[in-house]
């Protein structure tokens, strides 16, 4: 009944609108509006342009002031401070171009609206003018490109040798992170060795894997360069650290990287934002499927000494998952940097490997619901 009434009233409104339209048309015919070159509407349209523009600009100025508080705070990385500056300078330049062109255009719509006593000026070209407005944008763009190129080259230059190296791997629909451990080298991996536990596909014939550890959060020291080695194991993902102005795609089969230097610790940011619960977040910005919007991962920037303390508490992955010690070749077992627990013979090592074949559809849904 309700929807019937709604339908009926919509119909009624449409009928009324149609009648207004018909009456309006008939009046125009009676008045002979159609005989004239332009009607009164021409003036209305001419003035609506500047009126809309002025109202729009007022809204823009008011809201831009309002929106500032929702923007991300000052960049928490060193390179981000520079690119932020360049961004705002460019915004001012293009706002100026936008304003000048629109003020002129909407001034002209009023000033030169149709007048039957006037004739338009036959003015097909002016080479000096055209030359000027080809050259001026070209010069402005050259300056912007120069700064853009300089920053881009710095950002994409090879990471400093002493950078903290972290592997970030994207999968549907979570991030996984691996640290090189005490030897400072991330061990080799092979996608064919991936199983439900060994998510990275760590290859234990490489001794560099023995001390690698897989934490639940990324921790990085404030003020030191950090190099992210990025990869994906199923589809494209993209590492986005909004506060650090960092973004790089994660590509299966083609490792990528990005390095940056954090400027503020998490504690600093709590103070800057006035938010006691502030956390740095890692997001995915390349469409990757159902859970694309929910690949949140936490990153913590510690003071250097806190970082060292945190490092000391981390256990190698192999120690946490002793089942995989059986995958280490006999000759390398002596190199394992921790005490081996007595071998548990009752659990075969690959009992956790090879998950039961689940229909793929339902599997991805299960993962997504996590």
């Amino acid at each position, binding site marked *: 009944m309700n929807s019937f009434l709604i339908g009926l009233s919509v119909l009624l409104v449409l009928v009324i609108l149609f009648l207004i*339209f018909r009456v309006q048309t008939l009046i125009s015919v009676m008045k002979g509006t159609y005989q004239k070159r332009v*009607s009164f509407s021409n003036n209305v*349209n*001419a003035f609506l342009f500047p009126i*809309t523009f002025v109202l729009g600009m007022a809204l823009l100025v008011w*809201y*831009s002031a309002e*929106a500032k508080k*929702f*923007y*991300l705070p000052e960049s928490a990385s060193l390179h981000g401070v520079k690119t932020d500056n360049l*961004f705002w300078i460019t*915004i001012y330049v*293009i706002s100026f*171009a936008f304003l000048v*062109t*629109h003020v002129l255009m909407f001034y*002209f719509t009023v000033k*030169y609206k*149709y007048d039957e006593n006037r*004739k338009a*000026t036959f003015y*097909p*070209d002016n080479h000096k*003018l*055209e030359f000027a*407005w080809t050259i001026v944008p*070209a010069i402005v*763009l050259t300056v912007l*490109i120069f700064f853009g*190129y300089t920053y*881009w*080259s710095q*950002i994409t230059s090879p990471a400093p040798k002493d950078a903290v190296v972290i592997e970030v791997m994207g999968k*549907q629909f979570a991030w996984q992170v691996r640290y090189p451990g005490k030897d400072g080298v991330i061990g080799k991996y092979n*996608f*064919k060795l*991936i199983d*439900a536990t060994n998510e990275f596909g760590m290859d234990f014939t490489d001794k560099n894997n023995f001390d690698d550890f897989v934490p639940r959060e990324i921790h990085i020291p404030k003020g030191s360069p950090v190099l992210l080695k990025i990869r994906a*194991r*199923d*589809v494209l993902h*993209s590492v*986005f650290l*909004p506060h650090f*102005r*960092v*973004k790089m*795609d994660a590509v299966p*089969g*083609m490792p990528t990287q990005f390095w940056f230097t954090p400027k503020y610790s998490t504690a600093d940011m709590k103070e800057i934002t006035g938010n006691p*619960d502030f956390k740095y*977040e890692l997001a*995915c910005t390349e*469409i*990757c499927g159902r859970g694309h*919007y929910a690949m*949140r991962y936490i990153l913590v920037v510690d003071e250097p000494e806190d970082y060292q303390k945190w490092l000391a508490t981390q256990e190698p992955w192999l120690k946490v998952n002793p089942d995989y010690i059986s995958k280490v070749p006999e000759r390398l077992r002596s190199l394992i940097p921790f005490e081996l627990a007595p071998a548990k013979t009752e659990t075969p090592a690959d009992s956790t490997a090879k*998950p039961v074949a689940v229909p*793929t559809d339902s599997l991805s849904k299960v993962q997504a619901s996590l």
Partner: protein
Amino acid sequence: MSSIDIHAHSSDAHGHHDEHEHHEQSFIQKYVFSEDHKVIAKQFLISGLFWALIGGSLSAIFRLQLGFPNANIEWLKPLLGEWIQNGKLDPEFYLALVTMHGTIMVFFVLTAGLSGTFSNFLIPLQIGARDMASGFLNMLSYWFFFLSSCLMFISLFIETGPASGGWVIYPPLSALPQAMPGSGLGMTLWLSSMAIFIVSSLLGSINYISTVINMRTKGMTFSRLPLTIWSFFLTAIIGVLSFPVLLSAALLLIFDRSFGTSFYLSEIYVAGQALHNVGGSPILFQHLFWFLGHPEVYIVLLPALGITSEIISTNSRKPIFGYKAMIFSMLGITFLSFIVWAHHMFVTGMNPFLGSVFMLLTLIIAVPSAVKAFNYITTLWKGNLVFTPAMLFSIGLVSFFISGGVTGIILGNAALDIQLHDTYFVVAHFHLVMGSASFFGFLAGVYHWFPKMFGRMMDEKLGYIHFWFSFIGIYLVFFPMHYIGIAGFPRRYYSFTSYEAFSTFGDLNSFISIAAFFALGAQLIFGFNFFYSIFKGRKASENPWRSNTLEWTTPVLPGHGNWPGEIPQVYRWPYDYSKPGASEDFIPQHIPYAATPESNLPFESDNA
């Protein structure tokens, strides 16, 4: 030279033409499998409008989710069925919606709907030809498009859903049905549909190019071509050179999906299984895709700019400012459009040096674009402006072209793109500069050439209301997205609630959605006006806008062959508006200089 040839046998054509008058065509020949460019143009137009309705409705559904994430939308269940679970939109269907919205709008509305309609309709009429070079290929072009439309439309209704990996269909996501259900049958249909679409587009483009080169009437030299024709001509050239690359990209993807090849796939472990593929590169696909994808931007934009040039000049009663500069800008854009594609890929892991090169090339393309914008504004200067609905939409286009274009200077800068890539800033940028601007060009064209298409006028007042609602509505939708983008919100997110960094701006997202419903609703006014005026509109005169180009010398409703008598000869450029000394404020192209001694400039004579 070619134009002389054509003229030599155009009197023959005239003879044939009279025979045609007596020979009655069947309904099917006349309206369904028609080879008449005007009918084919209308077929493209109606199909384009149909797709615009679908594409727009899809965006309404996902704006509902983005603006009101907590709303219960159980009431959409009769329409969406299982895609609504517990009153919520399914996240995978959300991705399908954005994917199909993009695909439909870019290819089916703004490529086929815009070029298909106006290139077909205007090229023969404005260059003075009886029809296209090959009417048969032209017919095939439409029916291939129809077939491709059917496949794409069917894919909306299958159980696993249509393609959902974004309109750019990046593999491996689009290659692996295990990764998302939309990459199954939906993706197969998407790829088949696009392959057929490309065939249609190529047939059309080849026809446009050969018609413009070979079939101009006597006197219609390239330096007297209306800018519309220049834009359609260059658009067709871009299409011919870039669409085959998309076809090859799609074919390789089909191989990867169905025949076990590894062009794009390498080292993948998905759904509990390691795949055998090694050695492929997902980045290769992106290069191939954007080699079309970026020129595609100009395929949708150039025709709109051409249409705007014509309409602004006519309704300013003034020659277009810098005719030659406009042509050179378009040539520049055409050339540069092929060498800027990788600015879509700054953060894909591509060699950073390539990023520097593409940043430079990308910002160069801003120069000819700026020249075009300045020329439009100068055309208004000291004009005598008649604000027809077409003129309003053209001015709106210039505004969108500027406001959307300037943010390209930010995104084209690799260092700044790091933060903004794949955020709402990009969404705002391309919806203004490419989406809305081109759509306004399309609407302007419909309002302007409706009298020649249907012999009747569209209602002006409804046109004004439609314009102001759309113009304001579109700005209210896309301008706020810049703020959201600067705040870092990523694209294609089903919801922002899981992140603290993106938990702000909830109100603004609701506002955008309401503005979107408003702007979409305003298009219904156009729909009514369009269909009502076809049948009940005021009768049009032969040249209602007092325009110079040749199509206005045909009868009110041009028949088969366009001109009942001989094809008019062309003596002057198309922009002799308000010429000093002339009694009227326009002198059509077919009037010889000998007939206008009072207004001729010193260098103008029929012998020149």
